[in-house]
């Protein structure tokens, strides 16, 4: 059985149709990259998968581990093993990073019937993950993302992913705004988590990230539809020719 199965997904925001029939199948262990020009619906797809309520699904279905993902609240999707690394992580003053992350982990563990982790059990594991993301523990005593640089925020997203150990991780333009060092660290974190049980959807505008996180499949999203799928070489081709090529536009039109 596939981990994720998206069938003919249509979604609107404020009565604007953004996704217009997306089909995608993701198996455990696979890394899929979704590429596309601005406004093609990449982020919308990521948000729908993480159950953001702003998006209205008008048609189609999503099965996650055979369960109806669209019937789930955001927290339920998280309990089932969906994780999204946000393009713009939110700053939340007054909620400590470490406290938040342990609360989140315990909520997920509780759903899975596991014992809650106290601070004593949590800290050693947490420190390991901090090391992996090359993050300063002092940062964790601060409020959630408050005063973090752009790169620190993105690393914090991957840190959260490493602690929560999801079955499906969606990276929404995690590479945007990262310098090459931060990019390497983030990719390193992601690669260390690759394994036969876990799948990734890497949403990106640029091919650069895919030099570090090498995908099994690349999909091109244009105008709310996947118009082409291929291997990693497709990303290179897009880098060279751009999204504006006539081929892609023609394919989008042909499918419509």
């Amino acid at each position, binding site marked *: 059985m596939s981990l994720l199965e998206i069938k003919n997904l249509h979604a609107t925001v404020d009565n604007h149709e953004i996704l217009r029939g997306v089909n995608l199948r993701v198996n455990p262990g696979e890394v899929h990259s979704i590429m596309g020009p601005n406004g093609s619906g990449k982020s919308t797809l990521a948000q729908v998968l*993480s*159950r*953001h*309520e*702003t998006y209205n699904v008008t048609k189609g279905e999503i099965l996650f581990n055979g369960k109806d993902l669209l019937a789930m*609240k*955001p*927290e339920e*999707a*998280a*309990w089932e093993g969906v*994780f*999204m690394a*946000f393009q713009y*992580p*939110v700053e*939340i*003053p*007054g*909620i400590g990073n470490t406290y*938040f*992350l342990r*609360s*989140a*982990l315990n*909520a*997920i563990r509780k*759903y899975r019937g596991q014992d809650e982790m106290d601070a004593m059990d949590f800290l050693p594991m947490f420190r390991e993950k901090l090391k992996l993301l090359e993050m300063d523990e002092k940062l964790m005593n601060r*409020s959630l993302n408050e005063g973090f640089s752009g790169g620190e925020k993105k690393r914090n997203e991957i840190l*959260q992913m490493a602690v*929560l150990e999801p079955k499906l991780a969606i990276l929404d333009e995690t590479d945007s705004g990262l310098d090459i060092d931060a990019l390497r660290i983030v990719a390193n974190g992601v690669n260390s988590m690759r394994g036969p049980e876990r799948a990734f959807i890497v949403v990106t505008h640029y091919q650069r990230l895919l030099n570090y996180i090498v995908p099994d499949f690349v999909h091109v999203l244009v105008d709310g539809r996947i118009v082409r799928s291929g291997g990693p070489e497709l990303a290179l081709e897009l880098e060279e020719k751009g999204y504006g090529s006539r081929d892609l536009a023609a394919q989008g039109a042909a499918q419509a």
Partner: protein
Amino acid sequence: MTQAAKVQIQRLENYLAAFGDFQRMATGRDLPWLRSLRENAFARFCEVGFPTARDEDWRFTNISAVAETPFQLSRRAVRLLPGDLQPWRMEGAAGQLLFVNGRFSAGLSSVANLPQGVHVGSLANQIEENPKEIENHLGAYLNTERDAFCALNTAFVEDGAYIRIHRGAVLTAPIHLLFVSVVNGAPLMTHPRNLIIAEEGSQAAVIEDYVSFGAGDNGEALSNTATELVAHDNAIVSHYLIEREDTRAFNVSTLRIQQGRNANVASHSLLLGGAIVRNNVHPVLAGEGGECLINGLFIGSGRQHLDNYMYVEHAKPHCSSRQFYNGILDGHAHGVFHGRIIVHKDAQKTDAKQTNRNLLLSDDAQIDTKPQLEIYADDVKCTHGATIGQIEEDALFYLRSRGIDETSARKLLLLAFAGECLGRMKEEGPRAFAENLISDSLAELSKPRDSAASARCGDSGREWEEVG
């Protein structure tokens, strides 16, 4: 005679009768200075009557429900058992005074473990035993001319706490004053009066805590309380007001702070209960180098009305005041923050700041926030700001996307907002005490909203609105 005048007189008749009885029976009735203090205050109350919405200081608060209720002083002694009060007590207090219907209850109080140099007792006992010691302070600071409730409190001044921290004495654990109103029959009024004197270089923390039983079932309760707090030179005092009365009770409180040279006073107010609540805080920075923190949190739901009236007077140079009030309002609750700063002519180099932040959790909740600066000196720094907003949907989604359920996520965000006020409480015991009360109050307010309401919030586009 007009109809309005008749109503006014009917109201006053009730107080006239109560005052007549009181003057015949009250502790200290034979002390001329106390007698005239009471009589003058009562005369002033009769002159001005209860404020109305025409009064600028009461524009946002309609107290006709208070004015129209024929309140009585407590006539019979009420017996409470220690077990009745157990849930309301505070752990780790240096001493606890208990007042039932305005009367000190020695049997339910404990002041055994106080260190030397600290006097904590009942004001009535002090009037009885050694009135000389308080003659110069009692009523010397509270403005009965301006405020009818202060006048009324002073007319009925008799019992409350009398605390004196002697020169250089340091009290690390807080003193807990618990005021219990037990309504049993007629509408009940109490007028607790506290006098706190921190002598030179002393340090203490005092918690005033107001609760009520039985309001609404048999009648209403009004706690009309006033505290005069004198912090002499270099004294450090933290004052906490915890108002957690029954949501059918009325509570009007005035804290009048008089600060000496380099005195450092913090006023923390936590308004959680009450139908109509008015919280007056009036510090006067009357010595150079004084510092005053005025910190507060009000949490209302249902039809609660919570009014905060700050009146900060800078009378001497080189003083600083900081006002921070946060409000969380749900249902049809109505909050008011009125922050007045007065910088007198001599008070050069004043540094005064005021911030009021509000979260509205429902479409029907309302906040009126009003800064008012009066500056008569020319070299001062005064700033003010206010915000009104909702729970940020992006933050809520972020927390939920990590597996934190909606109720818990909302509670985390509300606690974070309330935590700004908790963070300013430097005494650990009172802070933990306050945190528990806040956490309990926020339980109901954390419940998920119907999606229609949240969609409306989302439509507004802006989560925060700057005002003032």
